[in-house]
């Protein structure tokens, strides 16, 4: 099966653009599985946060999936297009990465 991930990319200060990637998947695999495969197979510069990979313990892989805030590690890949975008109410860092650390756990104060 093939999934198409339409990913909003870019850094602050420039208009975002959508890049679409096709990724092969097996039944049951997660969006995070797809993103990690994309880095290995297509574009290693794609930025997204994750830590625990599969356990839904770290809560770092939160993003906008088909317009809804969700965890990439628990939403399943599907055939057809899945839209991925950074969290809308957090400061963008790059691609799917936003500033989600509590303010007192950051190196630099918010600019």
């Amino acid at each position: 099966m093939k999934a198409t991930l339409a990913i909003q990319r870019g850094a602050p200060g420039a208009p975002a653009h959508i890049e679409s990637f096709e990724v092969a998947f097996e039944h049951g695999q997660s969006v995070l599985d797809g993103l990690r495969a994309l880095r290995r197979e297509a574009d290693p510069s794609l930025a997204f946060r994750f830590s625990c990979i599969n356990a839904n313990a770290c809560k770092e892989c939160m993003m906008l999936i088909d317009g809804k805030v969700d965890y990439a590690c628990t939403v399943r890949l599907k055939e057809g297009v899945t839209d991925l975008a950074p969290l809308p109410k957090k400061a963008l860092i790059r691609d799917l990465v936003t500033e989600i650390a509590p303010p007192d756990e950051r190196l630099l104060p918010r600019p």
Partner: protein
Amino acid sequence: MTAAGSNEAAAAPTHVETDVLVIGAGGAGMYAALEAARAGATVVLADRSLIGRGGATVMAQMTVAAALGEQTPDHWEHHLSDTLAAGRGLCDERLAALLCEDGPRRLREMDSWKVGWAREDGHIKQAQAPGHDRPRCAYVDFLSTGPAVSRTLRSQLNAANGVRRIGDLLIVDIAVRDGEACGATALHVPTGQAVTLAAKAVVIATGGLTGLYRRNSASSNMGGDGYALALRAGAELIDMEFVQFFPIGHLAPRLVGMDPIMWDPFRYKLGGKLLNAEMREFEQDYATRDNRSDGRYVLTRDLATYAITREVEAGRGSPAGGAYLSFQHLPESEIRSAFGPVVDRLAANGIDLDKHPVEVAPIAHYHMGGVRADETMQTRVPGLYACGEAVGGANGANRLSGNAITEAFVFGACAGRNAAQHALQRSMLWSPQTSRPALDLLRSAQRRDAPNLAAVVAELKALMADMVGPFRTEQKLRSALEAIERLKGEIGEIPFSSAAAFDPVLADWLDLRNMLLVAQSVTVPALARTESRGAHQREDHPGLDDTWCVNQLVTLSRGSIELSRSTPSTGRAAA
């Protein structure tokens, strides 16, 4: 503390000063930071992920072993006997005794901080795990030990004075001056800025190396970076060949949103049957024969890994290449009363335990080896400490279920307290010169996209799983060393980069620099140890060899790995 503007990052790195720098914010690092602050030191707690989210602690499902004597009478010496027996002659008894003796105090401290240990009839409930002589393992229902421990320590840190937490900070190297640790150099991942840290003591709390393996139960940041930091700073590593494979890691069907080691608690509470493709229980076959056996029906992790792997090799594996784990003999009501909401999460994954078995297989889970430290958690480098899974020695050749979170608490507290005492007696040794080599490395990064480093990481993990996995031969280990050298050549000496902010290519390169060094540090002693002991199993050298009742030490000399031997420490730590 100063913060340079991002446009001048190249010229003036952000600089941070503190008494104690703790690297890694899992259970051990958070405990170390709390204790160092309690001892009066200022602390920076740094993590390359978010604080208290990465690492192994948050992934822990259930057991935390300590001789609390709540379920049944117990004494820490009994816990020590079990720990030493599991370690198969290689434990550093000073560290093992510290773990067992101080464990109950730390579990009670966590209890007073409202971690929420499961209770029954007014006492803390303790489960029996393989290798323990009695029920000794506390836990938080349902499968929530890790998240509860992380949340509790995070709350304590929020309330503590003198601890500055900095997430998204990837430590590149420890700064060393005249042989003493004096700080570190780091990459601030969100901005790509270099950061220098001056500290009077440095604590490595970065966890283990299971991220080096294809199938593992680790967070993404557990490629053994702390071992590489320690080696390059001049510290010794010990018992690096002992990687624990967790025998019944989830294999199929694909399960999302749950940790792959979750079946252990199910077996503690419900039993469960391990079956081969013939739907026949086989554990008993391996519990009664040869010197791999401990003679018990319930197999310790090294024996169960051996049993499953052998069944698969004999053509009796499950379709996905493991064993079946079945709870079909139990009524649905019993499964639900033991695991409540977890049953619904399984159902969402299409798993119905009273109707179908799942498939399980060994998965890299823990590393017994690590940084060599004395009973104050100091390495041979003055001012450099280690704690938690990053420390080697306490668990010898095989770790008992339940000892990992306990050692995170105990060794974390010990390292934090001693690092603070050290720091409070020292002046600041850090100078810009001590961070120069790491700053130069970061500044030399060049935009490159070939080879794809994410693919190289995957290749290394596959290589370690296939050639330096649970069953080893001279031929496999030699081919692993050749492949590691080839990969070192492919990544070269100059970092790759792709962007300024949150650059996964640069992070992969810095990771690979560490991972390849650590992969060698596992493979070289694995090749030298021509026997089978605990988690190190050589197909070409089956069975224990008494002459190998020694620890192997790894050091770095002019960029090359050197191996030496030492007799296991038997002197106990002072109480």
